[in-house]
C-alpha cells in the first residue's frame, strides 16, 4: 500500500518531531553505550574508545548492578500487586452505594498523587523516625520495640514500598473508578434477581468487566515501578548499604554523578530490555486468557 503524497505531508511534522526528539537521541544513546564516554572523552574526543559490548558485559559482572536489579525486582514484585490491590479496594469502596461523602474521599485519596514528593518525604522521614516517629510511637503502645525504618537495610525497602504505594495508588484508583462506572447496572440487577451474593457479583461481573482495565493498569504500573528513582533519591539516597538502590538510581549515579555516560547508557538499555520483556509477558498472559 502506498500513501499519497498528501498523507505524508500531514504526518511529516509529527514524524519529524518524533525522529528529532525521540528516535535520534535513542540511537545516539545506543551508540554511546558502545563507547567508554567519560570525563576524559568530554575533554578530548580522542580519548573516546569504542568498546563494543564491554559496558554490557562489565555491568553483568558488577555486583552492585545485580543488587540494584534485585532491589528493583523486590520493589516491583511487592509493590505492583500491593498498589493495584489498594487502588482496586479503594475504588470499590468509593463506588459502593453505601459510601458517603464520595467526592471528599475521592479528592482526599487522590491528593498524594498531586503533592510534591519532596515535601511528602520530609513528613515521612519524621513519621518513620526511629526515636521520635509516630509509627514507632504507635507500635510502641502495641508492645513492638522501635524499628529503625530507614536506617536498617532490611526495613528501608519496605518503607519505600509503603511510600510509593501510598503516593501512587490514587492514580490507578481513578482509572478503576471510571471503568467501574462504565459497567452497565443491568448486569448487577439481573444478578440480584437471580439471588447472587455481593462476592459472586464481584467475581463474575465486576472483575471480568474490569479485565481490560486491569491489564492496562498492571502494564503501566509495572513499567512505572521498574523506573523507581525519586523515592529512594529523596528518602535514603540509595542507602543504607545500597538496600534501596534501584537500577535507575544506579544509572543516574553512573551517568550524572561519575559522568560515565557510556556505562550509564548501557544500564538504560538493559533496563529497557527488561521492561520490554516483562510487558510482553503480561500481554501474552492476557492474550492466552482471552
Amino acid at each position, binding site marked *: 500500500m502506498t500513501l499519497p503524497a498528501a498523507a505524508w505531508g500531514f504526518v511529516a511534522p509529527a514524524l519529524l518531531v518524533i525522529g528529532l526528539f525521540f528516535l535520534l537521541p535513542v540511537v545516539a544513546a545506543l551508540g554511546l553505550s558502545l563507547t567508554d564516554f567519560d*570525563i*576524559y572523552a*568530554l*575533554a578530548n574526543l580522542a*580519548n573516546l574508545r569504542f568498546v563494543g559490548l564491554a559496558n554490557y558485559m562489565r555491568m553483568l559482572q558488577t555486583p552492585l548492578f545485580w543488587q540494584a536489579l534485585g532491589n528493583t525486582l523486590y520493589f516491583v514484585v511487592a509493590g505492583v500487586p500491593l498498589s493495584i490491590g489498594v487502588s482496586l479496594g479503594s475504588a470499590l469502596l468509593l463506588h459502593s452505594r453505601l459510601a458517603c461523602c464520595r467526592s471528599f474521599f475521592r479528592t482526599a485519596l487522590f491528593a498524594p498523587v498531586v503533592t510534591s514528593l519532596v515535601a511528602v518525604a520530609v513528613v515521612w522521614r519524621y513519621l518513620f523516625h526511629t526515636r521520635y516517629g509516630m509509627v514507632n510511637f504507635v507500635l510502641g503502645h502495641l508492645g513492638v520495640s522501635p524499628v529503625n525504618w530507614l536506617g536498617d537495610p532490611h526495613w528501608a525497602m519496605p518503607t519505600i514500598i509503603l511510600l510509593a504505594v501510598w503516593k501512587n495508588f490514587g492514580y490507578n484508583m481513578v482509572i478503576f473508578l471510571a471503568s467501574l462506572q462504565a459497567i452497565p447496572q443491568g448486569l448487577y440487577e439481573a444478578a440480584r434477581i437471580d439471588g447472587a451474593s455481593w462476592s459472586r457479583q464481584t467475581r463474575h461481573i465486576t472483575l471480568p468487566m474490569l479485565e481490560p482495565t486491569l491489564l492496562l493498569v498492571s502494564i503501566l504500573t509495572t513499567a512505572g515501578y521498574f523506573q523507581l528513582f525519586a523515592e529512594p533519591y529523596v528518602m535514603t*539516597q540509595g*542507602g543504607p548499604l545500597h538496600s534501596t538502590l534501584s537500577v535507575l538510581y544506579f544509572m543516574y549515579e553512573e551517568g550524572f554523578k561519575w*559522568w560515565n555516560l557510556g556505562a550509564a547508557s548501557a544500564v538504560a538499555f538493559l533496563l529497557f530490555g527488561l521492561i520490554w520483556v516483562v510487558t510482553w509477558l503480561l500481554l501474552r498472559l492476557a492474550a492466552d486468557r482471552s
Partner: protein
Amino acid sequence: MLRLLLGALLVLLSACTLSNSERQTIHFWVMGHEGEVIAPLLPEFERRNPDIRIELQQLPWTAAHEKLLTAFAGNTLPDLCQLGNTWVPEFAALGALARLDSHVAASRVVVPEDYFSGIWDTNVIGKSLLGIPWYVDTRLLFYRSDLLGKAGIQTPPRTWQEWERALAAVKKEVGPDRYAILLPLNEFEPLLALSLQQDEPLLRDGGRWGNFAGPGFRRALQFYARMFRKGWAPIEGGAQIANVWTEFGRGYFAFYLSGPWNIEEFKRRLPPDRQGDWMTAPLPGPDGPGASTAGGSSLVIFRSSRHPQAAWRLIEYLSEPAIQVRFHELSGNLPPRRAAWRDARLSGDVYSKAFRDQLERVRPTPKIPEWERIVTEMQTVAEQVVRGGMDMDEASLALDRRVDGMLEKRRWMLAHGASP
C-alpha cells in the same frame, strides 16, 4: 587605535562616568551559602574598579557539578567561579582552567607563603597553579567538655590512645542508650581524615593503583571500625539523626567529628545554659596531633574567559586579608591565609583556635578526577565492615580491586602519553 581614542574622548565627555557598554562584565558563579552572602562585598570592588561590572550567579551545591560540566560542553562557562577544591583535578583534566602562576608571580596581594600549605597544594596540579584558595574546610573534634569532665577526662585527647581511653570512659559514664562519638556512616570525611594521618599514600604509582590494602589505610579502617564495634559510636547515617545540634545538646553523643560551619550552628542552636559546655579540639593522630582533610573552595578562572585580567583583579580583591575577615563574618567560613587569622575577630574566638591549629596540619587527597568516586567507594566498604561485619582483609582487597577498575582509563591515558 581609533576605538581607543574614541573611548578616551567619551570618558572625557561624560565626565568620568563610564557608559555601561564600555565596562567589562565578568560573570562570576558562586555556590550555596557563599552565593547568598557574598553580594555585600561586591559593590566595594566595583567602586574601586569602575571599569568592571560583576554579574553574579548563584548555584545550589547539589546542581553545581552538573551545571558546570554542561556549561563546559556547551562552551558557556563563566569567567570566574568558586570551585570545590576536590573538583579542581577534574576541571584540570578537562583543560578548562587557566594557569594562575604568572598572575601570582606579579601580585602583591596573593602571597603563596601566607597560605596554609596543605590548602594551597590542593590547587597545584602537576606544576600548574589552577586556583586560589578562598576558604578552607577541615574536620576536627567538637566535644562536650562537661560530659568529658564527668567521665574524668580533663583535657581533650591528642593521640589515638588517649582518644580511645576518653571514648571508653565517656561511654561507661553515659550508659547504653547514649554514645561517646558521632561518626555518621554516610559521611566519608571521618575515615578519610584518619587515613590521611598515615604515612602511606592512598594511591600508589602516580595515582595509577589503589593502595587500600596497604598497612596505612588498614590501620585507619581498623581504628574506625573499632569505635563502632565497641559501641562508642552509634551505627547510624546522618539521616537517622534528625537534628545533630539538638542531640549534641541532649548529650546523645559527646564527640562529633565535623567542620567549621558548626561553630556558628552550635552558638546559635544550643540553649544558653549549654553554651559553656562545648569546645573544639584538633584531631588526635596515631601519636600526637594528627592531620586532617584539606577541604574548602578555590577561586578559578576558566580558560574560555575573555576578561582574565579583570577576573584576576576580583580574585585579588577577595583574597585581601581584610576582605577575607569580612567574608568570614558574613559566612562563617575560615580564611586560608595566616594574615587574616591575625585579626582579633578570628584569633579572639575560642572555638576557632583549634581550627587555626589544625590548618597547619591539613593534607590534600590524591589529585585525580576519579577521587570523588574512589572515596565514595571507600565509605561504602567501610559501611559494610561496620554494619555487615565484612572481614577487614577482604574489605581492603575488594576496595583495591574496585579502585583499580576505576583507574583503568587513567592508566590507559598515561600509557598513551596523554596528560589526564
